[in-house]
């Protein structure tokens, strides 16, 4: 059956758990291209280089009935005490899902949170904005 997807079909999961109150997310893949044009050619040619993934998301800062805040496991990758900074284990497993009835269209990756901002403004809901950089290969791709 023909179908267009809307924001209502989108789900962002972290570690297999759906994050509540996600306002938007975006995932980008990019491919570095390496030029191979030689001196006797007039048209540029390339070979594929290294591919990568990055993106961003915005979440409403939200505490559920059990007192769990939805952004905790994301923000704590950057907002932390101590002098150790970010370590190689500070990754998150993110799943970007578009739901079609019983079917899930997923892209899953491991990523570092590269920026996280949160603030407050009069008359506005508190939001957390994160950006991430994927590391390694995608572990799941069921989107076509």
């Amino acid at each position, binding site marked *: 059956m023909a179908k267009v997807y809307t924001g209502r079909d989108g789900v962002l999961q972290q570690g297999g758990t759906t994050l509540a109150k996600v306002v938007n997310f975006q995932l980008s893949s990019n491919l570095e291209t390496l030029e*191979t044009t*030689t001196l006797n050619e007039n048209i540029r040619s390339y070979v594929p*280089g290294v591919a990568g993934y990055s993106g961003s998301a915005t979440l409403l800062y939200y505490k559920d009935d059990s007192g769990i805040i939805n952004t905790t496991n994301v923000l704590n990758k950057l907002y932390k005490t101590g002098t150790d900074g970010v370590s190689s284990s500070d990754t998150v497993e993110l799943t970007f899902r578009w739901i079609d009835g019983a079917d899930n269209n997923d892209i899953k990756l491991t990523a570092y949170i590269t920026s996280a901002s949160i603030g407050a403004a009069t008359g506005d809901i508190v939001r957390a904005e994160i950006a991430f950089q994927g590391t390694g290969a995608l572990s799941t791709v069921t989107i076509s």
Partner: protein
Amino acid sequence: MAFPSLVPTSRSFESGDYPVKTFKAQNGKEHRILYGSNRTNMKLSLSYANITDANAELFLDHYDEVQGTFQTFIIGGLEESRGGWKGNKDAIGAGSHGNNYRYEGPPQVAQVRPGISTVTVNLIGVL
């Protein structure tokens, strides 16, 4: 094994000079003595960006075959090293002046990604 027949992605050429010795007299006048009839010391720099490692290896093998900077070799007859040059082929060569090339230094190989490398070779024309 001949010098690899690949078209470079960039090339620079210095045309060398005739063996000239210059003296300056006390009154400031310059005197030049020509010691030879052949131009020499041409410098040819060839860069091969993003080629396969197999092709990059050809330069390393050739460098080894000519014993590094020791032996000379001819590349003047190859169209590939002058690819893209629309002028007289002799103008950016060394052979027409009786020169052969030798490596000025080892080929520089930079790994770009798995299986892809960039190679730069610097050659100098010698009599």
